[in-house]
């Protein structure tokens, strides 16, 4: 797909890296995210509970404060009024003032609603004033509900006061009305702490600040300033059962919960700075973030390492395949991953080995083609084994042929003509040799040497050779008709002999030939040399072998160079009409 040198669109490394990185980081992110989410919600729920509990506890404390006053007041409304109460009541009232510092003045009213006694820390005490208080809201309220809490008033626009009235268990005991200085709640409210810096404050029903750890906020009685606190209460009321966030007077964001204070219809609100309330979850979040970062870094390193491990063998395979593809068959891919990659590398190595063997073989065969006829070359190829070319001793038929008077012709003729003649000559011989599946050993000058029955053996080699020689004569004689116009003396003679010879590859390291060595080669060569134009001379062994099917003429034994005794020679009778005609034609 990709031609070498063209970079792929994306690399495997990047792909694997992304996938592996994502495989670690995504679960990590999901785990971290969900932990943070649930942690936040748990903390929020916990804060709801904690603040709610704190608010209720604080409400109980404020209620206890009021309840304490109420209980003390209760002592004053236990005995029924008589006409002359005497000093006893006054003493009780003064003791009450002594006992409860928050009560600034106390008024005792009898069953008829007449004020019988008034004691005060500031004003003059009064006895038996007889003032009719039966229509005052305090007396009415107390008579209906036993206990009556008046609205909060700010004396001098600053000091918070409230009237508490209490009635006895029967109307005869009358009603006690106390003026209570609410600044004394400060002791209670400043003692309430929520977390590290959280605090509580009290709002009355219209939303005025009744109690706050910073008493000056109460004394300032500034309703505009207190508006954030009212908004905070509104926010809490909007989501019952949940802590609400809002701003306090200082503008800090707070988490606040509220509890009602029964009886007085006040609300106590506990607030904690949001930053402090969520401090633990913020810490946890930062821890999670830090872990995520560390996790991501580890994941990246792991992914890098794994990807490297994964891609490295692929790179080696790629590189190895490229080298093998480029013909470097001896290259081996060394992988010891122990997995599929190693197996793949082994396959590639095997393939390279086979390619190498096959290339070697094809090189060898192409070398063999030079001296083997194509059919034989292909045979060797098919067998895939060139041991057929190994040296051995077999009975072969050796044929030599050459042109007569070619040397003289080559001297006198133009080189182009010489080359043209030789080309046609070789082509013709080659065709014939191929047709008879004989082995063309070599061309040398105007001669050629052909071997039959080696390296591939064939049936009846002598007859085959003789037939081949006749075809050679036929073909060359046809060519000679034209060539004789160049030189009348040109002719073609063939000699062949049969007998044992040593055949095989002979040569130096750089040049190898297939050849036949032995007397038979010598003899064939000599026979060729002594053959006339248009003659095929064969030795006795060959003649014996073909006598049955070929007409032979026994000639006089000839003395041949290299042979001590005269050698019997036979000539193949060329009865072919065409040849005779050729011979006799232009004559």
């Amino acid at each position, binding site marked *: 797909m990709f031609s070498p040198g063209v970079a792929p669109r994306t690399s495997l490394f990047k792909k694997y890296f992304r996938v592996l990185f994502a495989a670690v980081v995504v679960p990590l992110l999901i785990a971290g995210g969900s932990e943070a989410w649930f942690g936040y919600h748990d903390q929020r729920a916990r804060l709801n509970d904690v603040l709610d509990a704190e608010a209720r506890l604080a409400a109980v404390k404020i209620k206890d404060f009021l309840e304490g006053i109420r209980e003390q007041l209760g002592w004053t409304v236990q005995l029924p009024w008589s006409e002359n109460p005497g000093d006893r009541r006054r003493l009780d009232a003064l*003791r009450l003032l002594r006992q409860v510092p928050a009560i600034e003045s106390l008024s005792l009213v009898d069953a008829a609603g007449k004020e019988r006694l008034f004691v005060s820390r500031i004003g*003059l005490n009064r006895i038996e004033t007889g003032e009719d208080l039966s229509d005052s809201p305090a007396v009415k309220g107390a008579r209906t509900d036993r206990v009556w809490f008046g609205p909060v008033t700010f004396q*001098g626009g600053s000091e918070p006061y409230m009237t508490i009235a209490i009635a006895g268990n029967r109307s005869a005991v009358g009603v006690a009305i106390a003026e209570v200085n609410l600044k004394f709640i400060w002791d209670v409210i400043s003692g309430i702490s929520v977390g590290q810096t959280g605090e509580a404050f009290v709002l009355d029903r219209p939303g005025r600040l009744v109690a706050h750890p910073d008493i000056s906020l109460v004394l*300032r009685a500034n309703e505009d300033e207190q508006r954030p606190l009212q908004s905070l209460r509104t926010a809490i009321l909007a989501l019952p059962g949940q802590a609400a966030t809002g701003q306090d007077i200082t503008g800090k964001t707070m988490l606040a919960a509220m509890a009602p204070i029964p009886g007085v219809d006040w609300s106590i609100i506990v607030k904690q700075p949001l930053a402090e309330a969520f401090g633990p979850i913020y810490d946890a979040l930062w821890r999670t973030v830090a872990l995520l970062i560390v996790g991501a870094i580890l994941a990246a390193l792991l992914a890098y390492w794994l990807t490297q491990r994964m891609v490295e063998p692929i790179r080696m395979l790629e590189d190895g395949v490229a080298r093998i593809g480029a013909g470097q068959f001896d290259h081996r891919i060394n992988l010891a991953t122990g997995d599929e990659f190693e197996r793949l590398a082994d396959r590639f190595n095997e393939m390279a080995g086979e390619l190498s063997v096959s290339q070697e073989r094809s090189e060898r065969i192409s070398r063999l083609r030079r001296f083997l006829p194509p059919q034989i070359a292909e045979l060797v190829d098919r067998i895939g084994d060139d041991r057929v070319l190994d040296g051995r001793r077999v009975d072969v038929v050796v044929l030599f042929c050459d042109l007569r008077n070619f040397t003289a012709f080559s001297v006198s003729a133009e080189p182009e003509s010489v080359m043209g003649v030789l080309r046609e000559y070789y082509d013709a011989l080659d065709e014939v040799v191929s047709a008879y599946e004989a082995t063309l050993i070599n061309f040398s000058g105007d001669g050629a040497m052909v071997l039959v029955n080696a390296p591939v053996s064939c049936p009846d080699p002598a007859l085959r050779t003789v037939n081949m020689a006749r075809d050679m004569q036929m073909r060359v004689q046809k060519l000679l008709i034209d060539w004789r116009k160049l030189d009348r003396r040109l002719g073609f003679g063939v000699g062949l002999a049969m007998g044992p010879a040593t055949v095989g590859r002979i040569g130096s390291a750089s040049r190898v030939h297939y050849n036949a060595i032995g007397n038979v080669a010598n003899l064939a060569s000599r026979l060729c040399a002594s053959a006339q134009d248009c003659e095929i001379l064969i030795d006795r062994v060959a003649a014996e072998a073909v006598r049955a099917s070929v007409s032979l003429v026994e000639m006089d034994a000839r003395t041949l160079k290299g042979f001590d005794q005269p050698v019997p020679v036979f000539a193949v009778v060329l009865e072919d009409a065409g040849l005779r005609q050729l011979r006799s034609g232009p004559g």
Partner: protein
Amino acid sequence: MRFTPHAFAGTIIRMRRRDVIALVAGAAALMVPARAQSMPVIGYLGSESPDRYGSRLKAFREGLAEAGYTEGRNVAILFRWAGGQYSQLPALAADIANRGVSVIVAPGGAEVALAAKAATATIPIVFEMGGDPIVLGVVDSLSRPGGNLTGVSSLSVEVSRKRLEFMHDVWPNTNLFAVAINPMSPTSGLQLKNLNAAAESLGLQLVVLKASHEEEFDGMFSAVREMRASGLVFSSDPYFAYRSQLLAALAVRHAVPAMTQSRDFPLAGGLMSYGGDFEQSHRHTGNYAGRILKGEKPSNLPVQRVTKVELFINLKAANALGVSFPPSMLSSADGVIE
């Protein structure tokens, strides 16, 4: 100049050394003034002398400590004492205002507060007084005082009539009482009015005795004895309050049953007292001074009213005078000296 690296490095080192030397020298030079400058100064205007203010100063320092300030450690206090010469107060207040203090503390009555108020309109002032600061023209509003003043008021002035009531409780069968008034006090008129109203409602006859100097005290006690009044009720006034020992001694000498605003009086041998808790008021004063030093604006600090009013009785003095207290008083007293 050839700028070789070596020369460059040398320059840097020289520069650094020079800078370091300059820094050290500068720091050393700045050290003492910087320390002094960093410590805020409170101007304390006292109408009397330090020994008469002793218990008040103790409470004041406690209040400062509540706000996180300790004299000599992180705050300095510049004292100016009038030594009983109230006419000197304006000059002393102006002196304090000119000394660049961070806050002026003006305890011990409306005179001191008004003197401080007249001296500056910018430096925060924390006052301490017995009367109503609005009526006395010190502030316009208790909840939002505005301007540069805030402070603490006790209920001493309001409760002067209660003293008459207590005296009447001890001598329920007599109806002549003497009342001591300091005509120099800005609250005297109001108190006299209250006392007269109380006397009327209690059915008592009042003889008003005026004294604005220590020298007149002796004559006052003699007059009470001469007119055979059952007792002497002191109106609320710092001048009287700071001279409780003297008044107690005179009361013992003249065998006159007397009642003042300050617990110092029965503690020094006087018969009884009823008035605001000065320890509480001076502690709040110190607390407010500290909060202002921390940066709070006096206009955001409402005038605080000390709610506690205390009754002190000296039984020894009562025995000496042949007086017996009704059980209601004994039971409701905050302190009984035996």
